[in-house]
Structures are given as C-alpha cells and as structure tokens.
C-alpha cells in the first residue's frame, strides 16, 4: 500500500480550504443538533431526516422557479422554513407531550420520526435522484495556492462564519436566546420564574431543525439528492456533537473542524483509508477528554 503523492504546500492549502468548507456544512447541521440536545436533552435521531427534507425542499423550490439562479437563492431561504414548519408540527402535535419521559423514550420517539420521515420523503418526492444547480457565479472553480478550488466551497466558507455569528448573537444577545440557554442549564428554574418552558422547548427544537434544513439546502448543489441522505449524516453529526461537548454549539464548531480537516488531510496522506482519520480523531478525543472538548451543558 503506497501512501499518497508527495505533499507540497499547494495541495496542503487547497485541502485546508476544502476541509474547512466541508466543516462549515457539518457545523450548521451539528449546531442544530447540539442546540436541541442542550435545551431539550434529546438526541434527535430524526435530525438527519430533516436535513434530507431540507435538501429535497430546496430541489422543489429550485424546480418551481424554473431552475434559475433566483430559484437557487430562494431555495436557500425557503427550504429551511419548510423544515422548520414540519418540525413545528411534529413538536406541537406529538413531541411536546413527551418531555416528562425518560430520555431513552424520547430517543425512541425521534427514531420513529426518522422512520416516518424517510418513507414520507419517498412518497412525496419519489425515488429518483434530484439535483440543484448552483448559479453561474458559484459554478466552476478558481485557482488558489496553485491548485483549483470550487467557488461553491468558497461560498460555504463565507456562509459558515455568518451562521456562527448569527448563532452567537442569538444565544447571547437576544432574550429568547438567553432563556433557552438558561433552560439548557436548569429547566426547573426557568419554569419557576414564570416562563412557559414548553414554548421555549418548541422554539429551540424548531431552530435546531431549521439549521438542519439550512444545511440540507446548502449541500444540495454539491451532491445528488436522494433517499438515504439521512443515514449518511446522522452518525457523523452525533460524533461531532459528542466530541465537542453535548449541547455546546461552539463544541459543534470545534468538532466539525476536527472532522472536516482530518478527513481532507487524511485524503492527502493515505487516500485508501482516508475515512479512518476522522473516526480515529473522535476516538482519541473521547479517550483524552471523555466529556468532549468544550464544556458540556449536561
């Protein structure tokens, strides 16, 4: 087994940027998962399904607007709201009655949701592969560090930090964000001071799912949108959230960076077994810091 080609600075640079851009999508999805984990204490197995619904909705919006670049921009905006709506319905109709239950029962519930969403997507969108076309400004690649980098990945490198800043603003500057942070730490206390905890939970759940949908819409132009996307991301997302610290959205950022970068550099080092690197990184982190890198809210 020979190792990859000799590593030069140019390829290192391009792998760095490519890895960072992948980390941005992972971050957006995992921040949502972590947020739900932190506030509701629920490992939402259906998070991957919502990501898949986000991608399919993005396709529908894109197709509705005649596969134009307006369609793409609108899909980025509308698809997350479709997902938020779906999650709001699921939360208010079913989930909100279960918060007093043991966590594993909630896990079971989200597993049931995953099963249902998986088949619903098949019923609504069918089994065919779908594709979203990025607008011409984001197509193709540019030369950077002497090797080519897809423009869409640069776009992701801009969007990711924006989402991070938005989340920071929301959780530390707005009242509702502060309440949800407080609810994550001590839900009884929040209830005691007269805040309707149930609606805080609903808000947190919907926001988390909104991020999943946004991640799905963002990833849509780079992959073929198909059934099974939910399974692809969910385990990775859980691992990222775990190494970052359960419920800590900045942990999700750190975890995503570790995951994305170990993967893209692993490709350079040992292309046959690149997939081993992120998982090995997860195992190492958990052995050294069993409760994750950043402070968990649990």
């Amino acid at each position: 087994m020979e190792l990859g080609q000799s590593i030069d600075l140019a390829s290192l640079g391009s792998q760095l940027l490519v890895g960072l851009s992948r980390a941005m999508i992972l971050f957006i999805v995992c921040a949502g998962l972590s947020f739900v984990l932190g506030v509701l204490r629920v490992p939402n197995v259906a998070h991957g399904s919502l990501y898949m619904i986000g991608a399919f909705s993005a396709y529908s919006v894109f197709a509705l607007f005649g596969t134009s670049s307006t369609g793409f921009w609108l899909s980025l905006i509308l698809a997350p709201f479709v997902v938020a709506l779906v999650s709001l319905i699921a939360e208010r109709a079913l989930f909100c009655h279960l918060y007093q239950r043991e966590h594993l029962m909630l896990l079971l519930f989200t597993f049931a949701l995953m099963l249902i969403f998986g088949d619903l997507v098949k019923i609504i969108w069918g089994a065919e592969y779908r594709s979203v076309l990025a607008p011409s400004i984001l197509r193709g690649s540019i030369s950077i560090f002497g090797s080519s980098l897809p423009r869409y990945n640069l776009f992701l490198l801009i969007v990711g930090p924006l989402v991070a800043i938005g989340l920071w603003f929301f959780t530390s500057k707005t009242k509702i964000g502060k309440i949800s942070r407080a609810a994550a730490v001590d839900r009884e206390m929040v209830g005691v001071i007269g805040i309707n905890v149930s609606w805080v939970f609903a808000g947190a759940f919907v926001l988390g799912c909104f991020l999943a949908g946004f991640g799905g819409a963002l990833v849509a132009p780079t992959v073929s949108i198909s059934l099974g996307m939910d399974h692809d991301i969910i385990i990775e997302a859980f691992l990222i959230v775990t190494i970052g610290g359960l419920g800590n959205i900045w942990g999700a950022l750190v975890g995503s960076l570790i995951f994305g970068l170990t993967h893209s550099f692993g490709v350079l080092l040992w292309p046959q077994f690149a997939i081993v690197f992120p998982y090995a990184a997860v195992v190492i982190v958990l052995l050294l810091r069993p409760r994750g890198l950043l402070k968990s809210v649990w």
Partner: protein
Amino acid sequence: MKRGTIIIIVVLIAIAAAFVYYFTRPPKIVRPIKVGIIDCYSGPPAVFGKDALNGFKLALAEINKEGVLGAKIEFTTRDTKFKVDIGLSMAKELVMRENVDVLVGTISSGVALAVSDYVRREKVPFIVWISKSERITGQKGHRYVFSTGENTALAGKAGGVALAQKPYVKYWIAGDDYSYGHDIAHAAWRNLAKLKPGVKKMGESWWKVGEPDLIPYLTAIQAAKPDAVIFATGGRSMANVLKAAKTTGMAGKIPIWIHTATDHAVLKPLGPEAPEGVMGTMDYHFYYPDTPANKAFVKAFQDAYGEPPGFPAFHAYMTGHFIAEAFKKAGALDKEKFVDALEGLKIDAPVGEVEMRACDHQAVLPIFLGVTKKVPQYNFAISSDIVTLSGKDVMPTCEEIKKARGK
C-alpha cells in the same frame, strides 16, 4: 399475573389454531406461475428497484396476453431495504410461504449472494437482475442461480479493452469502498495491465459509500497529475463524482472512465450540469441501439410509465421473457425442468438476441462504450460515439469460470 399468563397462552393457541386452519385449506387446482421479486424499494437504490419493477410489469403484460402453458404469470414484491438479513428473510418467506416458482431481483450483491446460497439448498431458481458482483455467476455460481445483468467481470473487461487503446500511462484509481467498487476497479485494471503492460498505477483513493463530499479526494487526485482516472462508483455516488469532477474542473483536464457514467438515471437529474467527455460503459441506452426492437420497447415503456426505461428496466424486461420462454420450453411447471430449459436459452431482447450461457448462467450482453455529450434534442447529456463490444469478447470464458468455481 396468573390471569395474564393465561391470556398469553390463549392467544398463542389461537394463533397456532389460525395458522393450522389457514394452511390445511384445500389448495387451488389450477394455479398461475408465481414469481417472487425481492428488491430494494427504499433508500438510494430505490430508483433502480422501481425501474426494474416497471420493466418486469411491462414484460408480464405482454406475456400474459396469451399466457404460458395456459396460465398467467403473477408476481409479488418484497422490499429488502438493501439489508441482507431482511432480504434473506423476505426470500425465505416467498419460498416457504408464497411457494413461488421463481425468485428474481436484488440490487445488493450481498443480498444476492445470501439468497443464492439459500436457493441452492431449497432448489428454487433465482434470477439476479441488477446485482453486479462477478461472484454471483462466477465463483459462487451453481445450478439454481442466473444473472440477466452485466457483472463487474464483464464491465471491467470492457473498460480495460477500451482504455488499452488510449495513450494514457499513469492511472489513478478511486471509488466507493465496497465490493462493487473494488471488483470493478480490479477487473478493469487486471485487463488493462494485461493488454497494455506499460501502464502504471499512481495511487488509489477509496471513500465510504454515499460520501457526500468528494471534493477533497478530487483535488488531491488532480494535484497528483495522473494521465487518466478510473472511477469505480455507481448509483448516487456516481452523480456526486460527476458533479465534483465538473466543479473542480477535472472533467475537462483529465480523461475519466467510469462504468455506468453514461447511465440515464445519473445523467438526467444532472441536466446541463453533467460533465462532457467522460468515458462510460453501459449495457443499455433507451436511445441506442437505434433498432426497431429497441424503439418498440422504449415506446411501450414510455406509454405505460411516462418515462424512458433505464438499464434495470431492460434487465427486468429480459428476465420476464426469459422466464416465459423457459417455461414454454420446459413444458411443465417444474423447477428442475425450468432450470434445464433456461440453460442456453436465447431470446430476442431490445438490444438483439441475448443468450443465457449454459456454463455459468450469465446472460451474454453487449457493452456500449461511449462518451458523455450534450445534444440539442435532449436537455440532459447522453452517451455519444458509441462503440459496441460484443458480450462474447468481454466475458470470462467457461474455462475461467470453471477454474474460479473449482477453488
């Protein structure tokens, strides 16, 4: 608690009684031919499973107009979810409970191999129509298993033959990290190296099946500057590869060969985004060969299902006709006679005459080598400059099969 257990016992006895009653009813006198389909109708492979089902339905609609041996062919489907345990238990259900005469189906090679081992013990014929592992009719072949689809040995050899005619020397191999990917890459490389001893393998990259982000792999391959790349991928990963090849600009710079790159199910959703100039091999196109037989099949399929048939539909359509013809030739509803009749049987398929080779139970299919290209009459890319490789030339010989099975 006492009452509870009594309830359990009563329920158990009632269920047992119901089963006994249900299965001791007198059987029907005249019965149709029953075909059991196990295939994947969920997850990413569902697009192929559904297409195959439509092709099979179309064949049955034609066959049942006059019937076979005075009976109609019926079918029933089971969803394997691409999981071996579920596929196996569904196959057992079809054989033991539904008493099917023939089993067909499967996309997953794992399911195909597991079911193949089961039907060998049960002596029920099983026709594989999509799974591409060469071991199904090669190393692990036996009397009761057949394949109407092209397999990795066939496709890999076609790729090797095609690439040997090109001037490229330095190759990079990349693909989905599962047995289909490894098999096809191995078969292509084996044949290429045999035909053109000077070729050199620079390296290999393997990603997990369904990997959404292939950009890091492709940028790393590009940095290594190979003369050509062999991608061993399929299904939705194929679309991801083509997209990534387009966005990284690899498609224009480095020649690429991928088996099934010219598959319509992949190129259609990509639409104008599909990269041009990618070499692909395929055993069926609805637009090629441009013969009356193929046109008639495509028209009938399009009328029935509103879209042109893909390669799974073509395989399944052939399978339906193979089943009908074999029963006609056998002259009886008997599994052993059916197997005997199917060996060496030739039918008229949309791509011309197709033979079920007697020595390994593998259908002899032509392979079409082409290059992706956008044409004005479609809003998706198609395969162009097609060269047909005859099935006999790219299949392993009967001696090679014997040797593989001898081990």
